[in-house]
């Protein structure tokens, strides 16, 4: 039997997004609404001045949320349905499963990306290059959070543990970094804490693109190096260190 890698990837997309959305359309509504609560609050509180940043922030958190959501989805599949064991005992490799599940999370996020894209078209005044940079930041942060989510899911032994991981990851990647507002709004010395999160570096690039906040070229270069570096490291850990076949 010829093995189709495309089939192996699409399996995850079907199970973890398409069939879920088809059988329970309500999940679509919940996914689309998720990033809007803070976006709306920040926009009202700032009388609209932070709207472009808030849209960028919603983009970043949607992508990070998609990746970290993978941790909970995979933990659920692994611990409650024993799906990971079934997949391990098959020709699918950890890397293919990881790739498929990442794509499935991306597909799951498509509705919100479309809505935010429409808002960005009207309210974020950036050059074409700026939008390309924004897309690159989003893809990098998505890859980082997927890899982190995958590694944690392979180590979690039950759903309660996965909730704990989700809480910690959410604090580090979503609450700590200033994605909906400029980092200068955070008083010292708490700004240093924000820099513990890779999302902060992505947020700085995004805020620079929107033109609301300006950062030096050197700072932006550091931001790129950090997000690319931590993402590559996390991807390497996901492929090499995830607990696929247990020891």
């Amino acid at each position, binding site marked *: *039997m*010829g*093995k*189709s*890698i495309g*089939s*192996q990837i*699409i*399996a*995850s997309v*079907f*199970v973890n997004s398409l*069939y*879920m959305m088809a*059988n*329970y359309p309500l999940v679509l509504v919940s996914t689309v609404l998720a990033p809007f609560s803070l976006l709306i609050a920040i926009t009202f509180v700032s009388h609209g001045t932070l709207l472009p940043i808030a849209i960028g922030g919603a983009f970043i958190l949607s992508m990070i949320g998609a990746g970290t959501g993978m941790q909970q989805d995979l933990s659920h*599949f692994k611990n*409650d*349905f*024993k*799906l990971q*064991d*079934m*997949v*391990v*005992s*098959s*020709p*699918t490799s950890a890397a293919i*499963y990881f790739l498929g599940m990442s794509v499935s999370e991306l597909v799951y996020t498509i509705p919100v990306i479309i809505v935010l894209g429409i808002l960005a078209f009207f309210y974020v005044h950036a050059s074409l290059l700026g939008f390309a940079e924004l897309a690159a930041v989003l893809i990098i942060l998505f890859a980082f959070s997927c890899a982190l989510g995958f590694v944690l899911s392979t180590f979690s032994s039950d759903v309660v543990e996965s909730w704990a991981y989700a809480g910690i990851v959410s604090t580090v990647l979503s609450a700590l970094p200033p994605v909906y507002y400029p980092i200068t709004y955070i008083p010292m010395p708490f700004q240093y804490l924000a820099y513990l999160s890779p999302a902060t570096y992505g947020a700085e690039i995004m805020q620079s693109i929107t033109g609301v906040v300006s950062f030096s070229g050197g700072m932006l270069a550091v931001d790129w190096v950090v997000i690319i570096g931590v993402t590559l490291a996390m991807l390497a850990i996901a492929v090499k260190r995830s607990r696929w*076949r*247990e*020891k």
Partner: protein
Amino acid sequence: MDMLTCKGLSKEYDKGKRALDGVSFSIPAKGVFALIGRNGAGKTTLVRILATQLLPTGGYATLAGLDVVKDTGSVRELIACVPQEAHAMPWLTPRQFITSYLYWRGMGRDEAARSFMATMRKLRIEKYADTTNRKLSGGLKRKVLVAAVIASRARILFLDEPTTGLDPISRTELWETLRMLKKDHFIFLTTHYLEEAENLADNIGILNDGRLMALGTLDELRARVKYPYSIKVFSEAKAEKPRQGSMIVGEDGVRQILTTEREANRLSTKLIKRGVRLSMNPITLEDIFYYIVKKPIENEVYDNGEEYW
């Protein structure tokens, strides 16, 4: 070439817990191999090692001549596994779950669709193909999992306690399925339902505390027990010790006498005349298990049996 070989297979977990202790055996051909043992005997650990989900700490194992550690990729092409406590996702239909599983195994769309329908028909559950799993009975849900591994066309199937929790009718239906399958598959089945092993298995292994205590066909295992007849005395009247054989007193007060056919006839006639309530049968796998392991299979903590010789 043997279908399955284990040589000194051991597994010690991090906290020093030894789950498998030098397990060695081989199974020559296809059919059903049932591994029986009490909870915690090491059955799932052995399945997980053979199904390439867990690494052993010692020894080696081969499936169809392929080493499960060194030839992992090739082994995974041959095997499919239904883990203990596996469930088909409730939001999917059998069609969605099984075809996705087949995609994961690398099958193309048309081939997966064909294999799915052929398997559903074979198991006579095709009318449930598009019913969401959450609406299916417990027995059907387990059948969906078994259908997934059958549809995969893997030659070697691992089924870890596939009938646990099923009602007797569902269990019997699943046995029928496995009986059909064993003609052209090697099925590694773990169970603590001894009648399941008796009904299905071509070979039976008894695992206790990580050690393989016995292996063979049911007849070969029977032959290991010196006395092939069992009398169970249920009433409280004093049971007479057999002239030949042994008597075991269970926790529930039931006395079991293992003896020869002749002595069983003599004793049971005598006891019936005294109005003692009893049953007499050729020994079952349960008796063999008790004889070899010295503990009943079901009760984890019970060990009050007293043996007279």
